[in-house]
């Protein structure tokens, strides 16, 4: 018997307005993500992959349709409630790493946890996660002192610090070389084995092999 979906997207649509031009990015998209899924979203440029991920990741709101996350309808929640859900239940990994330039690796990782716990609790946990992703010797490095792959690992560690139920990753390997990309994907696979639900966007066909489900979008629709 299938378990209750951790994410349920029902007929969402999103249209961007570029001046007077309307650009439909998503059209009646529906998808359900089960706990412990490793879902890969794929499709050509402009197919709506990132738009879909931003709606599910609560970075944007759809024009129509509903999104249920962890059994709670989140589409119409106030921004303050959505911020709280992003903090406690979602880990979001950006293509461009999105680290805070002034914070060291360990400070970047512990920042979301500081919103809930004191530094003396957050710091050891951040250090442990950075050690787990192989950056135990670069705790005090600023982002500019890290390679692209290392920065993405810091971003992954930051996404994990509050032990979220689901991790969203928007083309996390797009700016990495082959070796670094494989490291990151292996890390996602390990996290998935440990019970994390992962939703990842990728262009690369061989990266799709890490997924247990693949969702392909074309012109804003599920193919």
């Amino acid at each position, binding site marked *: 018997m299938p378990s209750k979906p951790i994410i349920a997207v029902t007929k969402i649509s999103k249209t961007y307005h570029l001046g007077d031009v309307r650009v439909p990015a998503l059209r009646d998209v529906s998808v359900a993500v089960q706990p412990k899924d490793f879902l890969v979203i794929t499709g050509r440029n402009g197919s709506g992959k990132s738009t879909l991920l931003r709606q599910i990741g609560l*970075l944007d709101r759809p024009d129509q349709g509903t999104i249920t996350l962890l059994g709670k309808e989140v589409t119409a929640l106030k921004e303050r409630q959505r911020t709280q859900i992003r903090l406690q239940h979602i880990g979001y990994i950006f293509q461009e790493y*999105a680290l805070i330039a002034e914070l060291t690796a360990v400070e970047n990782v512990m920042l979301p946890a500081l*919103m809930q716990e004191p530094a003396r609790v957050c710091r050891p946990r951040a250090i442990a996660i950075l050690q787990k992703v192989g950056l135990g010797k670069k705790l005090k490095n600023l982002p500019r002192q890290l390679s692209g792959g290392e920065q993405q690992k810091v971003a992954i560690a930051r996404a994990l610090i509050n032990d979220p139920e689901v991790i969203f990753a928007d083309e996390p390997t797009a700016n990495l070389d082959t070796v670094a990309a494989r490291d990151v994907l292996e890390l996602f696979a390990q996290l998935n084995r440990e019970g994390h639900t992962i939703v990842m966007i990728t262009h690369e066909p061989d990266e799709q092999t890490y997924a247990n489900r693949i969702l392909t979008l074309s012109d804003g629709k599920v193919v």
Partner: protein
Amino acid sequence: MNRRLGVPFFLLSRNLRSGNKWTLSLTIFMMAVAFINLIFIASLFNGIITGANRQIVDTTTSDLFLTPNTGSDTFTDVPSLLTAVRATSGVRNAAAEMVVPGNLQFQNVKGSWSIFAITPSEMAGSINLSTTVASGTYLADDDADGILLGRQVAGGDGVELNTFSLKGAKVGDQVTLTSGAMSKVLTVRGIINSHFINADQRAFISYAALQSFMPKLASQATMILTRTATGSDVSAVQAHLVGANLNVQVHPWNDAAGLMKTVTDSFVSVNVLLSFVAVLIAAVTIFIVVYIDIVNRRQQIGILRAIGVSPFIIRSQYVLQTILYAVSGVIVGLALFYAAIVPYFQAHPFTLPIGQITLAPDAADFSARIVSIIIVAIVAGLIPVTFITRMKLLKAI
């Protein structure tokens, strides 16, 4: 909530640690300049107002002055009146002055000025006449042939009112005092320069001279100048004098301020207006500094929001930052003001018709301005950061 409040401090401290130190220094310096702009004009106007008031007291009226009651132009029993006034609680000194009706002539220049008979040693205790003698000597009580001329009466090159003066009378020159059919030749003993044009348009002779010239007037006085004891409340001393039933009118010094009061009142109004403009300049400066900083960090603010840092925490960080800028600017501004600007203007005062004016910082006024600049900083900082934190998240990122 309490734990979350540590996050703005955490973010701000890292921002300061990794930020450009020159940019930070320049920002604080700009704040300091904005603050100095706020306090300099206020101190200058305060200096003008304080200076003008001090000159009136020190050169013309003393703290309190007594005039005869209505119906009489002069006091007649001057010695007993002076004794009674000096015996009043809070009075340090009292001295009589008598208006001498007459004209002065030097060579072929003749004119009319305010001429007063005084007891020089007594008057020195009520106003600073003896200490403003710029050349020559002060009068002696028994000097029946000498006269002190104000700088504007004596005239000479560079004197502001030379056209209406004796055009260059000097110490040792002889001038003729004429009143009706009587005249007396007097020797200029000294030239008074108080730097206060009103006070320097007067001449003084001793009561001894008046006795030899117009003996009927020598026992009278038109005004008693009363200096209060150091630290005493002038209003309380005035009340004591009124209560002493001396049959006189007791006036505070500012009753004689006249035109100067109009001028100082105008300065107060101008000061309020310029202070408002200075606060506005400070607000715009802070707004620009914070706005540029925040625009440069728009993406970072977007990232913070995306990972779950609430807009309240982000706004708190920037409020703390603007408070830091403002407080640092105030400290640097005060240090520069007291260490460099005030000493400079004490050494090089402004020369105005009311005297030499220096800056007069007012601690209470400064406190209000410090509070106002910090409030302005908070508001000017909050506006741009609120704008960014309300922006659509994706647009910020």
